[in-house]
């Protein structure tokens, strides 16, 4: 069965915003459960890490350029650069490396 793209988008909009709205309107006290608290703490980092690797070097034309972008991205983020500069550095690395293939 072929699903509708618009329904996918509608589901995405509703689900994402319901998640955002429920706690801010209903939660007046702190969550006490340690496991849930800790689980929620790790979730963003794990999800983003799983999505980034190995996809970062599968999306570029040359895998080596993708790996270089990963390494330099990690170094620049480690050095304290923000979202925008890190993104730009990753793009430049790929662009330059693919301009001069090894």
């Amino acid at each position, binding site marked *: 069965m072929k699903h509708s793209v618009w329904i996918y988008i509608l589901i995405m909009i509703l689900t994402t915003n319901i998640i955002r709205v*429920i706690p*801010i309107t209903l939660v007046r006290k702190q969550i006490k459960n340690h496991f849930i608290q*800790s689980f929620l703490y790790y979730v963003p980092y794990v999800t983003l*890490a799983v999505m980034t690797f190995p996809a970062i070097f599968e999306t570029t034309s040359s895998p080596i350029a993708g790996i270089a972008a990963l390494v330099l*991205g990690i170094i620049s983020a480690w050095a304290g650069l923000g979202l925008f500069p890190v993104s*730009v550095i990753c793009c430049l690395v790929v662009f330059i490396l693919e301009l001069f293939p090894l």
Partner: protein
Amino acid sequence: MSNNKKAFVQGLRDGLPIGLGYFAVAFSLGFMAKKCMLTPLQGFIGSFFTRASAGEYGVYTMVVQDASYLAVIVMCLITNLRYLLMSTALSQKFSPDTSFIKRILTGCCVTDEIFGISIAYPGYLNPYYTFGAASISTPMWACGTMMGIIAGSILPSRAVSALSVALYGMFLAIIIPPSKKDKAVCIAVIVSFLLSYMCRKLDIFERLNLSSGTITIILTIVISSIAAIIRPVLTNTDEMDS
């Protein structure tokens, strides 16, 4: 009222650099969406009302795989679970007389960056500050996605290849600084990299016919649960109690 106006203008000012970053990243999200067969209008509407890079990315990959609607809901829940936490944190930041409508609207504005500047607002959060920041960054995010989808077929493939890593660059900028501060996060990130690589390369998983999005969901739940058991996070109240 003039106080609210001031907060709104301040929000606009702080939201502008966020919006510029969004535009570039949304551009690369647009390339992704283009590969997943989305039209520019679908990209614009989806981005305008969702504003969640990882969540949108995850859903768009599922569109092309013709995943079930239930899987899309689960994907949104998992990739955006952090908003649950951020929204909870912001709920503590309101003055008690903040109206229900303003709470709902502020909740809808939550993204990593908007949350970051809102939670740093001195004293009680004036919702108009958050509204200001969101009202400039949201159109930039939506336009970036739309233009990425349009430009995906116009730009030379070398430029597309380079810009497509912008999104991953942003993800790295979100996960690396906490990894530097907290060794447990660092280990969780490294384990995530390794297991993600294995799951996508090993034959067994291919034979199980799991989509990339499903692998992301399963790995997130498993790794986060294990990390939460091995290294529970101490909260402020715990520290105060002990």
